[in-house]
């Protein structure tokens, strides 16, 4: 077990180092931040001072060494536009993004579990067909369009829910549905196909012939065996979920990390882009690490490799 944990930790660290390099390079090729900050009437000397203050006058590798050292200390520098530490600005927005992604993931997970299970247990029925058609539809709807359609229906026409903003429970509903939709479809499909496979196993037949109630068979024998593939997909999709959150935040003016980063890219705000990219990458790496550890906890076969 310890061995598994250590190997996973090491490869996670490697990925993080790679992320730091990529984040550094990406932000550096986006453009010269100084060019945007030059005011009309500034002298060459003043521009040079600005460059020296930002450290962009040094060779690229020196900039990277300084950058990596600062990252280790959690220092991404000050946002040139807001004058505050970039990491702080990003972390300030993190709860909103976490709220959105968590709500979306939980919604998707529970609906998928129920619909997928009903679909699998009533295979071939009208309900199953209906659910699978909806799944196919769900996987084909672009989430930015779905968001606009939901706004049109529930905000501008019915006036039931706010179209943008943050703060109350009503504000959470539309962004959550928008973000959850695709994952709901994917997970429902997965739950259904995994359950169908598990339900055909000998141990399910044995449990049934022992006379166990179906609910107990499902909980104890079937569900536990689909937990591992479910967790895998949840972890693999976490990055895509955050990517979807970026678009969703833009549509609903949700004050999350994604929206902050899109705005920062427009303003060529290097420190915020770097801090945001780093925080998101760390979140994805942690999600995958958690999934790996969950396998080891759930599945004894993994533990003793």
């Amino acid at each position, binding site marked *: 077990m310890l061995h598994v944990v250590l190997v996973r930790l090491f490869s996670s660290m490697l990925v993080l180092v*790679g992320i730091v390099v990529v984040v550094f390079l990406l932000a550096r090729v986006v*453009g010269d931040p100084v060019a945007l900050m030059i005011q009309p009437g500034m002298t060459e000397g003043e521009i040079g001072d600005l460059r020296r203050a930002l450290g962009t006058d040094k060779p690229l590798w020196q900039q990277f060494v300084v950058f990596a050292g600062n990252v280790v200390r959690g220092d991404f520098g000050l946002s040139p536009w807001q004058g505050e530490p970039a990491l702080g600005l990003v972390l300030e927005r993190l709860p909103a993004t976490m709220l959105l992604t968590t709500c979306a993931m939980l919604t998707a997970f529970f609906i998928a579990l129920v619909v997928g299970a009903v679909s699998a247990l009533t295979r071939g029925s009208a309900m199953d067909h209906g659910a699978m058609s909806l799944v196919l539809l769900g996987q084909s709807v672009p989430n930015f*369009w779905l968001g606009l359609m939901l706004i049109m229906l529930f905000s501008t026409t019915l006036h039931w829910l706010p179209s943008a903003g943050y703060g109350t429970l009503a504000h959470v509903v539309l962004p959550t549905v928008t973000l959850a939709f695709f994952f709901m479809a*994917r997970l429902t499909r997965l739950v259904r*196909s995994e359950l169908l496979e598990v339900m055909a196993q000998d141990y399910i037949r044995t449990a049934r012939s022992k006379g166990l109630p179906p609910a107990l068979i499902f909980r104890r024998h079937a569900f536990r065996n689909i937990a591992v593939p479910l967790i895998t997909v949840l972890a693999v999709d976490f990055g895509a979920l*955050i990517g979807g959150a970026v678009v969703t935040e833009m549509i609903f003016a949700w004050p999350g990390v994604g929206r902050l980063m899109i705005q920062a890219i427009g303003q060529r705000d290097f420190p915020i882009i770097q801090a945001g*990219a780093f925080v998101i990458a760390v979140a*994805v790496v942690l999600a995958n690490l958690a999934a790996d550890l969950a396998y080891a906890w759930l599945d004894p076969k993994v533990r003793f490799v």
Partner: protein
Amino acid sequence: MPGSIQRFVLSDNSVNPDRFRAGRQARPILPMIALALIALVVFAALCAPLISPYQPLQGSIMNNLRPPAMAGGDGFPHLLGTDILGRDVLSGIIHGARVSLLVGVASVVGAGIFGTVVGILAGYFGGWLEEVVMRVVDVQLAFPFILLAIVIMYVLGRGLLNVIVVLIIASWPLYARVARAQALRLRTSEFVLAARSLGAAWPRILLRHVLPNALTPLLVVATFAIPQMIIFEAALSFLGVGMPLEVVSWGSMLASGRNYLEQAWWIATLPGLAIMLTVLSVNILGDWLRDWLDPNLRLA
């Protein structure tokens, strides 16, 4: 294609419970409808200048925000209405099909070829090459696709070619992963060992023995990637970092209708519907293709 159905029936001794999914294999009506829709989109894309009633980017402000099927000032009807600048929505959708299809197919072909080559080399030879490739793949997969694409688009600037390049950069790891897994599996297979002991050089082994046997899962991944790429292009254009303003794209049409949801529902709704129907059709066809190619193959 009767031959394809025949083949499916012959190989139907799998343990895959999904083979019972009626409506996909038993009644291939849905795939046929999907195929017809795709044919329509391809036709629209190929013949856009011939069949579109108006120039997609020209409109008179006098005719702006006309609801669907209302005549413009010139007496001609706008079947799907006009946008804020008086441009015909139907013509925009017809021309937008070009961008979507071109981006979808070109980026999948590009990323598929690059990812497959890199993945097969990594899986077959192993060693430091595999390490480097897989670490790069890990790093890239830890970074949300859309965010990566947005950042690169800002570097490169808007443009058709740039969008394709970005989607290739962002999606090649998908193919590299699958290709590597296949090469790893095939490396020790008997026919590869036989070819090697007969003295075949490695390019021949990879091209004649490994690649053909690795192709099926790669094709399935590629089929499902086309609708993904179409959606990503639309998303980039929607966020204003995709197509330049002089190119009509379903995503940018959608974005332009965003501020007029109350007055003119059709501007944002109809291009989105076009995206959804195209993507849905490719997905349905992909499902069918996957079951036909290999009923045992399941990708979650």
